[in-house]
Structures are given as C-alpha cells and as structure tokens.
C-alpha cells in the first residue's frame, strides 16, 4: 500500500508560531524584498492574507525567535538586522477595542476621554510584553539568545532599570511606590487587570489611581526602551520592534463604536509619530485598509510616508508584471514547494525547477482543445446558416485535427472586414494561423478554449507549472492550497494500489491537476463568505463573474477576448464612495485584483480595472490570463451589481412558508 502523505495538508504551517515545522518550512526568499522590516523606523506591511505578511511579522515574535534558537536552523535574518527584540499587542484579543463599550466618566464626553484610556491601556500592555520578551530570551534556549544579543537581565540590572524608569514623568507618579522589578511587573499587571475588571462589568469604577495617572500613547514605551539601554539591560544597537495586530479591524467596528474606531487608529498613529531612536512600530494591514493620509490624534497633522513610516506592499511586490523576468513570486513558490516536499520526506527533490518537474509544462492549447472535444470535434465550431456549405466543411475538416484552429477560423470569419473568407477558403496555412497574425491568435486563444470547453460540455483544464503559478496570483497561501488539492486528487488515484513503498516525487497527470484545481477554486470561492463582511462580496463576485462569463462565452467573433475583467473611469467611481470602498474591500479580501488601466478611449479619462482573483477563475469558467482590453463598463453596471449583491441572498418571501429542509438538489440542470 502506498503510504505517501500530502505535504501541503497543513496550509498554515508556514504561519504558525513556535513550531519546529515553521522553522523548517519558512522560506527566506521573500526577505530580501522586505529588509526594511528589520531596520529601525516604523513600517507598515501591506498585503492580503497569504501574501506572506503574517509569516514575515512572525519573525518579529519572541516565541519564533526562540524556536529558531532551539533548533538547528539558523534564524533567517542575520547580522545587524537580527539585533532586535519584539513586543506587541493584539487589539482584539487583548480587549483594547472594548473601550467604548461602557461609559468611563459620565461627566466627560466619550470621544474626549476614550482615546486617552485606550492609549494608556496600549502603553501598559506593551511595556509588560517587553518585559516578557526579555525574560523569555534570558530563560529560554539555555540563554543562547540573551548571549547572542548581549542582553543583561540579571536582577540587579533590572532593578536599576526600574529605578531609572519610574522617575520618568510619563507615569504621572503611578510607579512612585515601586522599588523592584517584581514590583514593577506587578504594578503593570494590576493596572491591566483593573481595566479588564471594569470592561467586563466585574467592577463599577476604575480606581482613582488609574484615572489620575493616564499616560500619553507611546511615551512609556519609548521611556522603557531608553531606560533598558541606559541601564545596560539592552545594548544600544538592539532595537525594539512593537507590533500592533488587528489595526485594520478598527474600521470595522459597528454601531456607536464606529466613530471610536477612527479615534483609536489616530491614537496608534500618534505612537508612530513619536520617532524614538530605540522603538519602531510594525503594523500589518490589508492594502486599502491603510489610510493614505493617516491622521494623528490630538493634532491636525498626518503621518507622512517615508518620514514617519515606510510602506512595504507585498501584494504589489509579488504581482506578475508585464516583464515576467521581474516576477519574484515563482522563486518564492519554488522554495516553499521544495521545503514542503523535503519536510514530508519525499526523495529526489530537485534543487531547482521542482514545480515544473511535478506539474510539467501542461498541455498545449491545441491539445486542450482536442481533449475538450474528444471524439466530437465538430462541437468546437458553430456554423452560421448563411455560410456557404464549403466553408462549413472546411472548418469541420480542420476541427478533426485542430479544433482550436477551427474555432479561431470561425471567429475570423465573423470579424468585421474579414468575412470574405467564407467564400475564399485558403489553400495552405489558414490566414489566422499565419505568422503576421500571431498576436491576433495569441490574444484570442484563452477565450476560444473557454468557448470550446463550454460547447463540448467540459470544464476547462488548468495544468502545468505556468497555470499553477498563474492561478496563485502571487499569493503563497493560494499556491499551497492549489498544491494541497492537486495532491489530494493524486493520492485518490493511487489509493488502494499495491505498490512498493516509494517516496519519489511524482509527475502529476494533467487530468489529476485539473480536478485538484477545480476543487481548490471551489474552496476559495466558499472561503469568500467566511471573511468579515464576506457574504456580500461573494455574491458580488458571483454576479460579476456570471455576467462576464456569459458575454465572453457568447462573443462568437472573439471581438473582446480580454473581457474577463472590467474597467471604469476613476471620476465616475469617486462619485460613489460606497462602491469605491466596497471594490477596495473586494481587493483586500482576495475576491478581485485591480490595477490602473491605460485607456484606449480618446477622452483619456483615467480608469481602473478589476479581474477576478485568478484562483476563482476555474469556478466561474473564465480564463485567468489577462489579454488585451478588459470590458469598458459604465458605472451603472457596477452599481447594479452592488445593489443586487446586497439584496440577493436567501430571497425571503413576504409571508413565511415552509422550505424544503434538505439541501437543494446538487444535480439540477443549470439554467443556461
């Protein structure tokens, strides 16, 4: 019995913390493009889920650093860049976003005092986390990390540190009675616990000791870092990176707390504005969730890019470019792929081109067309009634050997100015196959294949390294998911087969890959609804994709082969901020991808274009390759989709009625 396992089953291993698996599977190939993350200065790391954002930010976590120290694998960040300690706060899990859930002071305006308490909570939490990190490094991995970073966290030095720190005015006297490090720790703990008791309605008031000693956001953190250096606990060249997790969720607070979310962001922004030499902040966020001009609490100013923070856009970095040679994602994917295979104990994993070895090059377009047609090649072409019979016979004859060519010939005949061909069948190479028309052919191949597949009642085939990487859309999580599903489909085919134990890497059959790709695509479509606010986005994508698919499928002349995406003018879009924000969310949550669109229209109005996230293309029977121009759509079309996405859904009746309890029939004929 073949006992091979699926090396991609644990999708998220690359993002886990503290596991030996992380250490072995993490791919450092993305690091060189994100080196600013490990240099002093605030950094905002933009990217959607699966861009590698969490993976990179995990390297800042002390537990992960410790996991490396305890393993044989060297920490992927070296030299000066490795000289840091990390601390952080998760705004949701810590309870920080609970401020606003109950009145703090009935005599003061909530918008006036909430940000202050929020900032104070952040300060104390993060300072405690800094201490936790020091203790972890001192005590863990036999002190290897402490030695490496030259941390000196002995009791005397820590007490000296506290002695220095408590005198800072930033505490407003809260630490006056603290004399030891342990006492300092306890004071921090007590304060946070008072907050939690109050926020959980276990106490009715915050103690006066808190109300009269609220700190300014960022100050205590900066003072702590400074005191650690001045007391010799931390060397001067060891930097403190502070992570703020779930920052982007502050804009999603509902109800009365909606406005508080903006205030809380401004408070965090204020911390970033302080520019302390020992402390830098790290914020991970989805693309459009980061304000272009982030406001700073208590001022009229904004944070400025490059002055207050650096921006690393992982989505942009990993996106495919016009020049494929500049695309860095394939190398990243290759590295992740190989590491996974090695970790799963597969043998003879090649040092390069492993993805190609396993997935092959995929069938040629001509072969794909032949596979769709099977024995009924005539289904590839649709003949017009008014066409001369000789032309029909000609096309059908071509279809027997090359249905793709026949389909292209059919389209050629339908195009403006080319229709004479129906009475002038070429003797030799058909005109659409001539070298001078290669771009015409290339631009239409994907759409033609989509139509042939549909006419032959077949799902499209995606197979081969290029297709897998293309469908991944520069997202490593999608790539691993595709591999997972394809591998599952392959393991299914060898189930129950009696072979000698063999752990060599397989060369996967195209059909197996196609099955796996469709399963992965369905998974990603279903996953859309599982994200915050995702049901409407899922429905929107369904409406858009259905419309695009219908039009592309019915474009018999292949006049608009690039219409697997749509484009609108920016000025129209700006008139509908709700729609604009919704489209941005669709991009942030992986439903769509977007890019600037250089218009072909004479009015030269700037436009933007959107396509489905490539991995969704198989589900909707759309080609994922972008070619030529997307469909130019008026804004009213998008508004109609947006409106319908919010109204569509369970279609409740006006009067309640019994519904069939069982699941709907999966096998009902689809309406065409």
């Amino acid at each position, binding site marked *: 019995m073949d006992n091979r396992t699926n090396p991609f089953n644990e999708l998220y291993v690359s993002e*886990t913390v503290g596991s030996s698996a992380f250490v072995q599977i993490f791919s450092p190939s993305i690091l060189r493009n994100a080196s600013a993350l490990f240099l002093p200065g605030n950094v905002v790391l933009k990217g959607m889920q699966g861009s590698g954002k969490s993976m990179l930010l995990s390297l800042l976590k002390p537990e992960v650093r410790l996991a490396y120290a305890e393993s044989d694998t060297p920490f992927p960040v070296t030299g000066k860049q490795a000289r840091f300690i990390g601390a952080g706060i998760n705004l949701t899990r810590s309870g920080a976003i609970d401020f606003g859930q109950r009145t703090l002071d009935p005599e003061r305006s909530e918008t006036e005092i909430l940000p202050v308490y929020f900032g104070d909570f952040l300060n104390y939490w993060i300072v405690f986390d800094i201490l936790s990190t020091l203790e972890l490094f001192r005590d863990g991995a036999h002190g290897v990390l402490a030695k490496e970073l030259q941390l000196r966290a002995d009791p005397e030095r820590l007490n000296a540190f506290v002695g220095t720190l408590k005198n800072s005015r930033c505490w407003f006297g809260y630490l006056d009675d603290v004399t030891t490090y342990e006492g300092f720790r306890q004071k921090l703990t007590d304060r*946070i616990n008072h907050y939690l008791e109050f926020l959980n309605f*276990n106490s009715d008031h915050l103690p006066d000791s808190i109300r009269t000693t609220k700190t300014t956001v960022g100050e205590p953190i900066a003072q702590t870092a400074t005191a650690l250096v001045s007391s010799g606990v931390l060397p001067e060249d060891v930097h403190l990176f502070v992570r703020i997790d779930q920052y982007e969720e502050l804009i999603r607070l509902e109800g009365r707390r909606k406005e508080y979310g903006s205030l809380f962001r401004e408070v965090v922004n204020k911390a970033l504005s302080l520019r302390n030499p020992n402390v830098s902040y790290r914020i991970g966020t989805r693309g459009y969730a980061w304000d272009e001009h982030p406001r700073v609490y208590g001022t009229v100013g904004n944070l400025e890019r490059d002055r207050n923070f650096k921006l690393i856009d992982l989505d942009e970095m990993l996106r495919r470019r016009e020049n494929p040679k500049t695309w860095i994602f394939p190398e990243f994917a290759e590295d992740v792929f190989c590491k996974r295979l090695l970790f799963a104990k597969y043998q003879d994993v090649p040092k390069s081109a492993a993805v190609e070895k396993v997935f092959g090059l995929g069938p040629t377009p001509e072969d794909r067309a032949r596979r769709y047609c099977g024995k009924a090649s005539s289904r590839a072409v649709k003949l017009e009634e008014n066409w001369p019979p000789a032309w029909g016979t000609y096309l059908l004859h071509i279809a027997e050997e090359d249905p793709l060519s026949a389909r292209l010939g059919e389209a050629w005949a339908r195009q403006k100015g080319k229709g004479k061909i129906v009475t002038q069948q070429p003797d030799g190479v058909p005109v659409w196959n001539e070298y001078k028309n290669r771009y015409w052919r290339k631009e239409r191949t994907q759409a033609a294949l989509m139509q042939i597949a549909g006419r032959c009642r077949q799902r499209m085939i995606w197979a081969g390294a290029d297709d897998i990487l293309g469908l991944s859309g520069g997202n490593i999580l999608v790539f691993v998911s595709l591999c997972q599903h394809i591998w599952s489909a392959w393991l299914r085919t060898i189930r129950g087969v009696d072979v000698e134990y063999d752990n060599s890497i397989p060369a996967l059959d195209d059909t197996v890959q196609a099955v796996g790709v469709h399963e992965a695509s369905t998974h990603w479509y279903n996953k859309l609804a599982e994200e915050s*606010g995702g049901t409407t986005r899922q429905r929107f994508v369904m409406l858009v994709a259905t419309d695009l698919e219908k039009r592309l499928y019915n474009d018999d002349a292949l006049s608009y082969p690039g219409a697997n995406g749509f484009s609108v003018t920016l000025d129209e879009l700006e008139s509908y901020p709700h729609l604009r924000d919704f489209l941005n969310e669709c991009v942030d949550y992986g439903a769509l991808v977007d890019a600037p669109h250089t218009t072909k229209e004479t009015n030269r109005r700037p436009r933007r274009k959107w396509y489905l996230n490539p991995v969704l293309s198989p589900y909707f029977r759309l080609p994922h390759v972008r070619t030529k121009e997307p469909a130019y759509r008026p804004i009213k079309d998008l508004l109609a989709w947006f409106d319908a996405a919010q109204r569509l859904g369970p279609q409740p009746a006006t009067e309640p009625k019994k519904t069939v309890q069982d699941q*709907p029939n999966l096998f009902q004929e689809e309406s065409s």
Partner: protein
Amino acid sequence: MHRAPGGPVSWVIGKLPSRKWSFLGCLGPEERSLGLWEYVRSSAKTDKSLLVRIRPGSPRYSAEFGDRIKLRLDKLQQIGGPSEGIIEIDLFATDAEIINVVDQFASVCGPHVMVDFSCFPKRFFFPFVKRLLSQTKIETLIATYTVPDHYFSGLLAEDHQVFAHLPLFGPAQFPEKKVEMVVVTAGFMKLGLAELLEPYKTGVKIRTILPFPPGLPAYHRNWEFIREMQNLPGLLPPIRIDAFDCADAFDHLVQLTAYGAKNAIFAPFGPKPLSLAICLFATLAKQAVFYTQPTVYNPDYSTGIKKWDGEIGAHAYVLRINGNNMYAIK
C-alpha cells in the same frame, strides 16, 4: 447519575410546581420567538415579564423584517403583552446598553425566572444569563429554547463582523494563561472560524463537538462543517453530544479543561443549547468566549414551532433551584 435537570418545558414546569414565572424573551421575526411566551401566558403562571426587540444591524431586508414583526405584534395582541412592555435595542448596542436591559428586568422580576434564549443572538443571551446568575434574589432560573419546525435551507446569516469576545466574556485575567485548546461546536456556517483560529495553530488542540442527535439534515451539514476544518493542525476526532443536552455538553467541557484548569477558547457555532453550556462554563471558569457576529440575519431563519405530542416543542434547562446552582465545576 447526577446532572443538571432539563427536559421538555411542559415537563420541567410541571415538576416545579407552585411558581409564578417572570419571563424575559425576545420579540423577533421568527414564529417561535413568541412560542414560550404564549405557553407561559396560557398557563396563567406569569409574574413580571419583558420582551426585547432587537433592531437589525443592517437596512437589508428591512421590509421583510417589518412584515414579520407586524405579524408577531398582531399575535402578541392576542396573547397579551408583557407587564414591563417591549424594550428596543440595536443589534450592535454597547455592552453597557445590553447590561442595562437585563438589569432593568432583574430589578423588577420575581424569585422565579424564565429566560427564553430561542431568538436572542449570543451577544445578548450570554450576558443575560451571566447577569441573571449573579442575582441572588433569583431562586429559580430556567433557560428555555424552542425548536422550530424548519430552518431555512440556505444562508441563515451573513456578513459577519471580525471576531470579538462576547459581552462580559472578555479576557478576565492578565497576563492570560496559555491557551491549551480551542473548543468549537459544529454548526451550519463557519463564519470567521479561520480567523478566530489564526493564532492557535500550534501547540493547541482543537476539539470539535458534533451535535448528534439530531439526524438528517443537520447531521450532514455538521459533518460538512468539520470536513472544512480537517486539515487544521491539532484537530482531534469530534465528540458527539446531543444538540439539546446542555448538561452533557457542560460536563464534557469540565472534563476537557480539567475542571477549568486548562485555558480554552470557545467558538460556539453550533446549536444554542450547546452554546448555553459554553456560556455557563465560561461564566464559572472565567474564560473568554469569542464569536463572529453576523450583521444580517435571514428574516426567515426558521419557520413554525415543533410540537411534541401536542405540546410546544421547547426544552427547558434548569440553572438554579431554591437558590442552588445546578451547574458547577467540581
């Protein structure tokens, strides 16, 4: 055998004679939202009563919601209204506003209280139950749940918020004890489960509770829920628990967490009676409960009310009798 009592509501009420019940329930679009109120009114055993109407969090389906609420109000006219009237509150009310509602009820209720959680979203019934349990003047406390005839076969709720802890069920202790397990009750939709599990992918066991009974169609929907989790690291085989057995679920939680010694994160996606068990356990063990709150509910979430031998198909869970709490972590 020693477990918290429970059973069909007619049976439970019959076994707790000589009591007049103060009633706290939800006036919602579903028919079953008034099922227990009608039952209690017809038994002529009512004391003070309050209904809470939760205003939707989204303008979508407002016409449909309005139609159904009107039907319920018409029905209420026939049944008779609650003594303390109807309080309206937003779905995304603050914790303070939610606490205010239950405290208002607690200030007027008598010693015997019935809280019907059939139609309350979790962010309401969790704090309601916790707050009522803290009231020593309440001698008898039962929580009731009405079973509908049918659930809508498609989407029951949509567009959930980012995960957050339920009101009054936030982190209670700092620094937080290491999370050792996540307990998930399987349901029909796993809105936001992936992001909730995000930080707990290593070193944390994931225990799923598969509600069984009932049988089909819920059985297959619940297995589908579990199938989509199958590749999560740390996932252990599911534990089968009767969807309506709050006491059994509670006992399991006690054992899984070694009597509350192990810190667990709870994700109550499954049937409400099992969520009640999580509420009770988390109250006693002071542990956090996270949830992803839908923004939109289907106005036809369920239809009808089950009947068992001619009686209302509703379960009653006895939380306190004669001042003695029935659920305890021993």
